[in-house]
């Protein structure tokens, strides 16, 4: 009985924790309105969930995910951080970042087959 209660608690906690953006395979861009020009276009990623959070609205996520540079892109799979791409002080992503992320997403999906 104790085990069942624990399981139910864990399930509810996983929902209540509100981190659905980390479910399955997702690409999350942590940004701010003043660096919009530096963002990468996530719309091209069609095989995974994509999110863009702005520090003005979702500061708590930035703290929880230890975001140090804006913008930053994180790739998650089942709650785990798989890849982090930061802009650094230049506030510009390294060249080929979009392709690198797309390749990583394809690799993660490919591992399911």
């Amino acid at each position, binding site marked *: 009985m104790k085990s069942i209660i624990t*399981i139910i608690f864990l399930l509810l906690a996983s929902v209540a924790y509100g981190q659905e953006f980390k479910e*399955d395979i997702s690409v999350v861009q942590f940004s701010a309105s003043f660096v919009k020009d530096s963002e990468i276009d996530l719309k091209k990623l069609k*095989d995974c969930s994509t999110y863009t959070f702005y520090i003005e609205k979702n500061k708590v996520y930035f703290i929880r995910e230890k975001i140090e540079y804006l913008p930053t892109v994180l790739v998650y799979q*089942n*709650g785990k951080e798989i890849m982090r791409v930061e802009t650094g002080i230049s506030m510009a992503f390294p060249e080929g970042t979009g392709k690198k992320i797309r390749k990583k997403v394809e690799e993660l999906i490919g591992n399911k087959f």
Partner: protein
Amino acid sequence: MKKLLLLLVLFSTSVDAQILRDVFKYSTVFGSYTETSPLFTTPMYFVTQDGEVRDVTAERSNDYVVSYGIRKIARMDYENRTNRFYDGSEQNSSLSSNIGNIKGLEYLFQYSKGRQQGRDFKSERYLIRYIAKYWIGRVEMQNNGLISLNYKTADLRLRLPIGKKFSLSAGVAVRTHKPYGYNPIDEYLNSMLVDDDGNEYPANWWDLAYNYGFQDVGYGIDADFDGQIDQSDWYWVDEDGERVADTDLDFRRNDYTKIVNDYNKTMLDAIGILGTLSAVVGVDYYHYRDNLWVHSWGNLFPKHKHIHGDEEFSYETFIGSDDWVDYNYGIIFGWNINKRIGIFTEYEKTKFWDKDLVYIKAGLNLKL
């Protein structure tokens, strides 16, 4: 299978290259051959009148399976890919539930043939599923010669995702099936037959045996030699006049069971395949973390309509209602309590028509 390959080639040559890439991306074409020694057979010996011992153990050739096909079915995260290569023997939990581990198109076209325990068989399974955000479509045909499973199903539903883990769905499903609930031999034994003079009489079990060419011959036994018959019975001969049973009971226990099975099969085959359209509602939940996962699903089919085949033998007619409840549900759960202890369980229950199937597995792993 040849027709399907032809369709595949036609499809490949007629559609846009990008669509083609999307359709075949992550898919695997596979072919495999497996041969194994047959299961152990208990040695059998026959001793002749002269005391000579002869080995009469049935000889069995090796079992083998040839499988080939193309597949694009995503494994759930908890399903280890134990073999590096696909060989056609894979069982994917995602195919039991309404949602898989990816959105979009999944498919499986597989053909197998071989021999198992001395019996030749062939199996086919063709499946296409599309999971979109707000709808699910699925068509499937399976003909498994090993377990005599033959059905077609098509399913179209609207889907309501609730967060990333829950999903509700509702729609319609078409299922083809054998005439369930109808037992031809039962009907035969409760029917009226007509004799040569045109008189009706209730069918007896032995009437069916006569139809199959068997005849019974009555005899009596005077066990105490007092000139009175103490016991009477019938022995049975086949159409060649060979004695096949010494008593009615002996006959019913042996040849008559084959007659009943053959009669049932012949009558059911004559009725053919039936089709039922059903309303369906479903629910799915999937949560995965490396140390805890839950995958559960359920489907309820509360309302039905016979749409194909002889309605007289539909399940609807058999139970006199169109609102019987079919359902299936399942749960797969695994929990690595800590680095050394893990527990897991799988439970699946299906109640379709008068068929009730249960699968259960549970276990504990302790790493020393």
